[in-house]
């Protein structure tokens, strides 16, 4: 009796429950809650980075061809804006663009930030140019969410230099800060030390911390030449290197070091003695100087972009400059 009645009750309940389902679409779905994973994904996909870079470069090429300086502001910022503007001005004066301004569109490596905030930095290393110039290190920066990426700096890498290794672009790399610890020097201090090194040469107290690099070698040669000329004229010359505060981009490499790209402004003051005129030292200076009246003192302002690799503290390596760019931006006769 009990068995029968319970069977009847179960059947009635089942019928009642199932009738309630009739004509419905089923149970409403709810969104899956995303697990609170560590958001260490790159801020850009490779496709996005390529789109951004190629867009910028194509616009830049347009500007190069048109010698259009006005639109440079939409794609360039920071030291690269100054340098490219100067280069275009020189090109306008000289009639042709310096071949060092060439930036290939093919990519060798890209280092994409994983930073959720702003500004965001992307390092992209191009291939060598068609005429066998060295690779270019492009620094793309997005200053805020509502702004697009711009080319902030370009450094020509020294030939034969050993670059640090980075994570693959699918993984992304962490952005560094100017006061990163665990390194031989903080990036900011390293840039200041390098500026001192450039200024003082072998007499700098930081000379032991840096390895030799092409920039210093070339600069030394140039300074010597000018010095010889100055001595003939009984003139003097002086270069002052000053790092620009805040004009720095840092990405952490896979081995714990930092790749630092910073702007160092320099001023070169040449004073010709004995009533002689101080003339521009190079074609670029000449082009920039244009029709100016030379005096005995000439002050040329340079924008230098240097790329330093600051190794980790315990590695025993020296800070190495891996690339640079140098362009006079202003020539004035004082």
């Amino acid at each position: 009796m009990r068995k029968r009645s319970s069977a009847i009750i179960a059947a009635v309940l089942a019928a009642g429950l199932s009738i309630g389902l009739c004509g419905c679409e089923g149970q409403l779905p709810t969104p899956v809650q995303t697990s609170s994973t560590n958001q260490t994904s790159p801020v850009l996909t490779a496709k996005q980075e390529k789109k951004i870079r190629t867009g910028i470069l194509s616009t830049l090429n347009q500007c190069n061809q048109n010698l259009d300086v006005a639109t440079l502001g939409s794609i360039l910022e920071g030291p690269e804006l100054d340098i490219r503007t100067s280069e275009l001005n020189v090109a306008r004066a000289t009639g042709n663009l310096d071949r060092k301004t060439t930036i290939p569109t093919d990519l060798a490596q890209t280092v994409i930030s994983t930073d959720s905030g702003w500004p965001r930095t992307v390092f992209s290393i191009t291939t060598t140019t068609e005429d066998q110039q060295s690779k270019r290190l492009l620094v793309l920066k997005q200053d805020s969410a509502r702004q697009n990426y711009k080319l902030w700096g370009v450094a020509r890498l020294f030939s034969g230099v050993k670059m640090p290794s980075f994570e693959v672009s699918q993984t992304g790399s962490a952005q560094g800060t100017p006061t990163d610890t665990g390194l031989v020097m903080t990036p900011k201090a390293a840039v200041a030390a390098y500026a001192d090194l450039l200024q003082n040469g072998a007499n700098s107290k930081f000379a032991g911390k840096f390895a030799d690099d092409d920039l210093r070698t070339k600069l030394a040669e140039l300074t010597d030449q000018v010095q010889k000329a100055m001595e003939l004229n009984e003139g003097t010359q002086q270069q002052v290197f000053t790092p620009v505060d805040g004009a720095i981009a840092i990405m952490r490499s896979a081995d714990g070091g930092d790749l630092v790209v910073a702007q160092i402004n320099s001023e070169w003051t040449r004073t010709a003695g004995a009533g002689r005129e101080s003339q521009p030292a190079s074609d670029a200076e000449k082009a920039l100087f244009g029709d100016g009246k030379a005096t005995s003192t000439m002050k040329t302002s340079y924008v230098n972009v240097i790329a330093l690799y600051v190794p980790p503290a315990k590695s025993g390596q020296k800070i190495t400059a891996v690339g640079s760019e140098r362009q006079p931006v202003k020539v004035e006769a004082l």
Partner: protein
Amino acid sequence: MTLSQEEQEKPRIKTGPTRHAKIMRGIVTPIFGLLAITCIVLGALNATVWKPDSRIAATMSVNGTQYVVTDPNVLQLVDDYVVASVKSRNAKTEVCIALGSARDVAGWIAGSKYTRITGLSDWTTLSARHSAAQGDPDASANQTAFKDSDMWRSVKCGTGSVNMRIQESSSNDADNSVALIDFGDGKAGTVSLDWNRRSVPNFAMPFYLVGGLLAILAVLSASVFAMPPHKRRHRRAFASVEGAGTMEGDETEVAEWVRNAEASASFGGGAAPKRRRRHASHAAGASREPEEAAQPRIVDPASRNLVADQQNAAASAAAVPPEEDVEATSVISQDELLAYFARLAREESSEAQQAAQPVEPAKTESAVEPAEEESTAPQSDQSDGAQADPQAENSQAEEPIDDSSESTETSEPAEAETASDSTESAKPDETDDSAEADESEASESSDTASDTETSETESGSHPEASEDSHAKEPSVGSVWTPQESEGIDIMQAIKGLQGIKGLHVFGDPQKQDGDDEDEEEQR
């Protein structure tokens, strides 16, 4: 006794279906059947007319915020493919839909108010919530336009309205795209998400399953559940129960079948006590529904009432004349047998008078040697061992009479007797019946001596014994001449014999044992 009682009980048993069966078959089965049909019909309807829609379109209207953002994983709520449609109230303003990662979108709308699409409130409406984005509004100069931002994975804009087809894998990835809708200056409009389900829930299958189960229940309730409860029980257990309680006061039998029922029941232990209770009440005499099953007659050889059997046997033996045992005594005539019995009775009485007899050692000796056939009569008599076999003694009382006169002739029967006696003493019970039957054979062949009984061997040897009775008598001392004087009532002689305990007449093989023991006690 059992049959008569059964006949008495039969008029009380009702015939035809029980109330239980009527309820099951008449009410429960139709109910289940109807439910089963209903379920199958509902299932068919759910598969066709009420089939869930594969297209789900949910909309909502937006008012007051420029930006509308979908929560993570809302775009893949129903299916991986979704068509997002945005329509502005102002047909001239530009509306845009952008897909980007959640943090990029959060960065873009920082500091602004926006509407969150959190999911489905029902199948045709999106659920939304107003919210304010964290952070400060971007105050930088030269901000890019919405559609020009580098951050979006894809963006589409239109004037007044825009549709965008979005396909995202429904993985639980924090980097999944969310949709950011920019209403521009209009700040009002409708947003709708359109999915096309590739897998639709199947509501027909549960109905079919339930319908099948109900159909099975209907069939079961019409057949198995409708049977009377005790009929569904194990047949063997039931059979042992059958007829046990019908006799009054038959408590030993009740206890018996309780044991049998428990031993032979194939149900669990819980069922046994229940049955026992039922059958206890049944045995108490309560009238229950009839059992129409066949009632096999139980014969338990261990449960015999020997006293009653003996009395019955005695009564029937008296009623049954010796003529019925024709097959046993085909060779010996009845008259000869009766004469022998009469003679034997006299022998017994005379033997009792004699205290020490040479017969006794001969009797004991004759009891010992069963298989010896060639031994001389006195030797055979002497070889017989002492045995408490009154029959052997009786027969042996005759043997010296027979053997002394004619050793050769009586040797075989005597030996047959001794052989039969010893074997009889060895197997008192089992050979009783067969011993009687082999009466004639014992006299003819000594090989069958093992099955012979004292009385039979005596009778077997009677043809010779009776002939030689004249010669034997003088040795014993008792004189009995088979003459006309034997017209004495043979029946009286038999009755006299019967008076002697231990002496068996035809038809009572069982009596031998008891009589033998009694005679032994006597002696």
